[in-house]
């Protein structure tokens, strides 16, 4: 189990190694990376993330506790990077390991959705035209 806010590039393999276990035959790794275009089609140069680090880490642990309340065998890692990120770099990684794939998929999906809703992390899109905009997560009609 690993719950971190980091400033360095995310190495997915390291995060996977933190949750892999002999009893876990199904492992789902999700990562979100910086897209070259915003939802409105504008060209993106990069993103800048910031977080309330203590509360964000606590929210990751809380999300994992909720997952394990219904699926106690799931092992989870949640890592979010902050600072300036370029297009293509990994912003967030969620790895869920479980005895079987159904729980692993369900846990990874729940964790990334919950993170977007309740982890105090903020994203500023920096466009190629020089403008910068803080972008909020949307719920309900959000692309999933």
């Amino acid at each position: 189990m690993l719950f971190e806010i980091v400033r360095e590039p995310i190495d997915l393999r390291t995060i996977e190694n933190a949750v892999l276990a002999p009893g876990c035959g199904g492992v789902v790794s999700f990562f979100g990376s910086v897209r070259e275009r915003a939802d409105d089609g504008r060209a993106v140069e990069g993103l800048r993330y910031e977080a309330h680090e203590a509360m964000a880490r606590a929210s990751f642990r809380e999300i994992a506790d909720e997952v394990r309340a219904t699926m106690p065998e799931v092992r989870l890692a949640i890592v979010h990077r902050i600072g300036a990120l370029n297009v293509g770099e990994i912003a967030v990684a969620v790895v869920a390991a479980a005895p079987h794939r159904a729980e692993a998929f369900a846990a990874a999906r729940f964790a990334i959705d919950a993170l977007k809703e309740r982890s105090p992390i903020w994203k500023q899109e920096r466009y190629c035209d020089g403008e910068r905009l803080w972008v909020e997560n949307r719920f309900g009609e959000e692309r999933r």
Partner: protein
Amino acid sequence: MPVVRLVAFARLREVLGEHREIVLPDGANVGDLWEALVREEPRATALARGLRFARNDALCSAEMPLRDGDEISLLPPYGGG
């Protein structure tokens, strides 16, 4: 009179600054703190929508009383992931 430390994030940080200490009247709550900030910096008014507060790293309501030494975080709508 309680002295609280204020920490603001994202667009609120840009308007209010990252950290500052504020002295409030006895009996003031988190909502009173926000009102005082808005009086001082009217541009913050537009950022009230979806705003959440935390006291010493735990989410709290605007009615939460302030105590000397509290750290109050101003959390605009989230955008992580």
